């Protein structure tokens, strides 16, 4: 589609005066220092011996202390397999869950922006009744598949009888809020139920469990963020495509998604970051096989106290790939994608 070319990246009409530029650079470098100094400290800590770390602050390698690669050697060679397996797990779980989440989530976000939904209170009440029946059945000792089946039957029954008579209901905004409200319960409260959940499905300590858990817990964030980006896509394009006979799926794939690339990329990046760095759920759902890197980092706080030097190495190799990803994707979060689209 020619109208979507990114060619016209004209410089903004606002030219930057010299004083503004100086002030901007001072502010930018100040914050860059705040961001980079802790990372610098990590980097030099990874090159220090335990003695260097414990005998006072040393700032500059070669001048204040003699850098050595002992910690790196320990992590890569001595730990070896115990570093690489979590690494592979983190990469696979992170990328898979993020891709699925962004895909499902942006579809739902688009639907919440452009279509109108109405869920009647009758349907909600039927659903709650179904869940209540299932819960009561399980509490009183029925096996869970039986309970779920009973609940589902009650839900369908009520839905097709009583629910049809109830007209008022909730709309798009309420659905969106319901989704984000799923993130309000702190993980400490949900890990045990989630553990039981995956135990029943016999998925403990597998990639599958982590992927499902991450998709479910990060979906609301994707839906909320993508909603705003889709809202800013001009509806005229979609309308004209619809007049030309394109199906909603086609419109979504070939018009809306390309136009929302900056938002998509930003969302992809931090859902990836969330999945990459998640700690508590991984702690409960995995043991030896599917363990991820944040657990390896936390494990360096051994009985002898935190092993700062190993921790630094691990944190550094953990952020490496994410930084590479950020550098590769950064240019998509760029201005000018929409220029010309509306005119065309």
């Amino acid at each position, binding site marked *: 589609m020619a109208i979507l070319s990114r060619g016209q990246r004209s410089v903004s009409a606002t030219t930057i005066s010299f004083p503004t530029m100086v002030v901007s650079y001072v502010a930018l470098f100040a914050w860059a220092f705040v961001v980079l100094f802790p990372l610098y400290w990590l980097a030099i800590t990874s090159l220090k011996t335990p003695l260097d770390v414990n005998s*006072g602050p040393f700032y500059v390698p070669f001048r204040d202390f003699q850098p050595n690669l002992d910690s790196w050697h320990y992590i890569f060679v001595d730990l070896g397999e115990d570093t690489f397996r979590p690494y592979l797990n983190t990469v696979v779980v992170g990328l898979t869950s993020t891709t699925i989440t962004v895909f499902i989530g942006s579809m739902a976000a688009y639907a919440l922006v452009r279509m109108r939904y109405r869920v009647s209170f009758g349907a909600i009440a039927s659903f709650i009744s179904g869940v209540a029946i299932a819960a009561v059945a399980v509490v009183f000792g029925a096996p869970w598949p039986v309970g779920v089946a009973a609940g589902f039957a009650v839900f369908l029954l009520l839905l097709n009888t009583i629910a049809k008579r109830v007209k008022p209901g909730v709309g798009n905004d309420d659905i969106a809020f319901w989704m984000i409200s799923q993130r309000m319960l702190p993980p400490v409260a949900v890990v045990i139920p989630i553990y039981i959940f995956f135990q029943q499905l016999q998925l403990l300590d597998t990639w599958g469990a982590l992927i499902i858990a991450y998709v479910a817990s990060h979906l609301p964030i994707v839906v909320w963020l993508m909603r705003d980006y889709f809202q800013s896509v001009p509806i005229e394009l979609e309308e004209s495509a619809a007049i030309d006979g394109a199906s909603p799926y086609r419109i979504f794939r070939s018009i809306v998604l390309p136009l929302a690339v900056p938002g998509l990329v930003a969302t992809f990046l931090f859902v990836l970051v969330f999945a990459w760095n998640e700690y508590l759920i991984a702690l409960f759902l995995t043991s030896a096989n599917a363990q991820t890197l944040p657990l390896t980092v936390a494990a360096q706080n051994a009985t002898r106290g935190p092993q700062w030097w190993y921790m630094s190495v691990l944190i550094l190799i953990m952020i490496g790939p994410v930084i590479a990803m950020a550098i590769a994707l950064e240019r998509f979060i760029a201005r000018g994608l929409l220029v010309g689209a509306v005119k065309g």
Partner: protein
Amino acid sequence: MSGYASARERGFRIAASRWRSAGARLDRFAGAVFILPAVIVILAFSIFPLLASLYVSLARLSFSEGGVQLKFVGFDNYAKLLVGIDHVHFLGLAGPLTPIGVAVLLAGAALIAFWLYRYSRDHARSVGGFAGRIVVALGAGTLLWLVVTTVMSSGRPGTLVVTIVYVGVDVTVQYLLGLGLALLVVQHLPGRRFFRVVFLLPMMITPVGVAYLFRMLTDTSKGPLYPLWVRFGLTDVSWVTNPWGARVAVMIGDVWQWTPFIFIVLLAAIETLPHELVEAAVVDGANRWQVFWRITFPLILPASSTVVLIRLIEGFKIVDLPNVLTNGGPGTATESLTLHAYTIWRALDIGGSAAVAYMLLIVVTFVGVSYVNLFRRRVTAMA
């Protein structure tokens, strides 16, 4: 066409007037296909934990010979937090009111009264809206009372107030910093791509790692700030022993890590804005200040309100920083609600822990619902 508008599918009635107005030949099920995957995943994954932890919060878990026993105890776990042995830990210790405290309370009450009065003169008022606002007023008043009596007095704040302080300060500072940085980076300065990537870095470190990193940095004898501590004579009286010092350290860590999140969302929002608006305004003689307040800021308000809501919700769950950095100390001065739940959970009081988690859920829901209804709706309606 009319057949489509009344189509029903499992109770989800989907009207698609927008599409119809475009004269589209529509796939009947598109509405369901787009949203059902997300709805099913979230439903399947959220209902069970929600119910299970509610049940656990009403029970006492004991480990006995050959397994675990759940004993139903009603609202005991909640009573313990609100009036029982754990209420100082949770709500804090109220001290006598100071003049400043009284002034703040009066100002708060006046503000709430004025706000209710203004709504009562609004043309769009309704009974439901008024009832909702009274609930908000009562809730906000209670929280204000708690903050004033425990923080602005000789008392000491409990985990609930500490969490609210964290969230309030962190989200405000993060938003201002993130917005400022996004506006700086959006300018066509040479090297701006470097800053974009660098500013994202803190967010990419695993939260546990950030917590340990800040423990290294804030160490008063081996950390890089050692010369500074020496200069102020603070090497012996470590900041960890001062409640507010410790809280500020936790908040600095949180701001450092999560400012990038707000930064990148706002950056992407500003970058997606149509160029023509700004250019037209500049041609008409608007200065940068006017362009920001009249065009950029209103247009990124929806994205702003979303990112603030997400940070509010996530901020309430802060746990790694206080846990690793200060271990909740001194005493329980830096303990957040999630850490509170976590510590009683480690003491194997699973029921009590679930009760704390549910109290947190109630507070976050209250804040979230108020925020969405009073602020976000208006913002998105405007845009």
